[in-house]
């Protein structure tokens, strides 16, 4: 056989192996036990506590990320200043940090014996073991996903449009809120969806920095690990819910991408 005929075969084999390898574990989650067992395990109040806590903390984290991250991304996308590339790298660093490193870093920064622990305690703020610590951990690991996406969406805007807004007398704030944000809306939505997916999946940093207690700090990911040793059906049931969330978020990212490409 010639290389010309081998190559398509090799490509087909590579696609087959890749797809099978990536899909198999997900399929296994759904077929390991009967659907009735999975649904039954979700009726467990502690499972619902975990999912509810995950949704609440992820929503709070996303709110903070959008509120602070979007203007930061705007500055990084449109201004040139000394040290800009250092700031960009710093903002992206949590993206590639192992979660255990993130958890430890948060603990030695905001923990009782941490870098700013005394200051926080003076202000009456204790983070570890509280729900607020979960939110802090989620913001730390998920923010770069939104900021990166928002930054590239803002950078892709036509400078002439922004310039026109300013020459027509709009203030910089008005240009940002009324022109830039709506024009970049699809990109921003994709950033939010990616950050939300990362926040819902967070495990290591939460366990190390916030702890694990039902209804307070035990999010769905932590509850899966907690059940692993004693209640495999319960762990699988929560896992399938997280898979469904993740799939829905991917659809959002995809639709946002298609709308952006069309406009």
């Amino acid at each position, binding site marked *: 056989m010639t290389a010309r005929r081998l190559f398509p075969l090799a490509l087909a084999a590579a696609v087959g192996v890749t797809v099978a390898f990536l899909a198999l574990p997900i399929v296994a989650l759904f077929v390991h036990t009967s659907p009735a067992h999975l649904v039954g395990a979700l009726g467990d109040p502690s499972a619902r506590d975990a999912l509810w806590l995950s949704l609440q903390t992820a929503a709070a984290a996303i709110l903070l990320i959008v509120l602070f991250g979007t203007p930061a991304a705007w500055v990084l996308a449109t201004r040139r200043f000394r040290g800009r590339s250092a700031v960009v790298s710093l903002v992206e660093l949590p993206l590639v940090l192992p979660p255990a490193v993130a958890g430890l870093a948060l603990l030695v920064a905001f923990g009782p014996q941490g870098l700013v622990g005394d200051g926080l305690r003076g202000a009456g703020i204790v983070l*570890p073991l509280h729900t607020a610590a979960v939110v802090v951990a989620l913001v730390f690991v998920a923010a770069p996903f939104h900021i990166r996406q928002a930054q590239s969406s803002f950078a892709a805007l036509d400078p002439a449009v922004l310039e026109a807004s300013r020459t027509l007398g709009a203030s910089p704030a008005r240009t940002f809120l009324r022109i830039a944000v709506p024009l970049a809306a699809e990109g921003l939505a994709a950033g939010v969806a990616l950050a939300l997916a990362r926040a819902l999946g967070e495990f290591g940093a939460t366990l190390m920095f916030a*702890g*694990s*207690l*039902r209804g307070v700090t035990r999010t769905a990911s932590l509850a899966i690990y907690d059940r692993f040793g*004693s209640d495999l059906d319960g762990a699988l049931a929560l896992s399938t819910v997280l898979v469904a969330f993740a799939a829905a978020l991917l659809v959002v990212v995809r639709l946002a991408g298609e709308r952006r490409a069309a406009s």
Partner: protein
Amino acid sequence: MRRAPALVALLLAGCGGGGKPAIRLAAASSLTGALSACASSIPGVRTQLEFGGSDALAAQIRQGIGVDVFAAASMKLPEALAAEHRARPPTPFATNELVLAVPSAGSPIRSLSDLVAARTVTVAAGSPSVPVGSYTRQVLDRLPAARRRVILGRVRTEEPDVKGIVGKLSTGAVDAGFVYRTDVLAASGALRVITLPAALRPAVVYGVTAVSSTAGTRQVIDSLLRGGCARALRTAGFGAPPR
């Protein structure tokens, strides 16, 4: 392509280890220090160590991962595996003692009663499914209901294994935690032991069992029972198994 033979040789060397059988030993988190020190000197085998909460390790064994020997922080978990015909009946190889641990510097807590009396104490415990958490609940179950409720209310995190509790203690995230005496010894001075009243203390017995029939599991179990690992366990503060 000319480099392939060298690569294959390298891989074989990595797998072969001079012909000694490789034994995968899954062990309770609390055994980390002691077994890391002795495992490489078990004669006739090459041990690969994996540490974790005993309950999570048992769950992995149920899923059929290739563990050869399971050393758990209880007899209950390996006995359950034996009842399911997934392992041989376990043998006790060490004992430990559940204690209350506090940071050695500046902690006002001196006894179990201080956990109840103090206003704002935070406590770390093991999750109920991991042995250290199950022993902790046995202690609390022997207390009067009112005191038990107060202490359970002060438990602010239920960790998946004992290392998580020690971590929370040593970073000051909690004021006190229920751990094993050997964990406090291993923390080299950072933690202080508060001995629990003898009437409350549960029997903490570690059990070891062969999960596979691989040649070499016997050497590992022998070492834990009476060889180099038994000595390493005594040095780390573990007690001799009950007769």
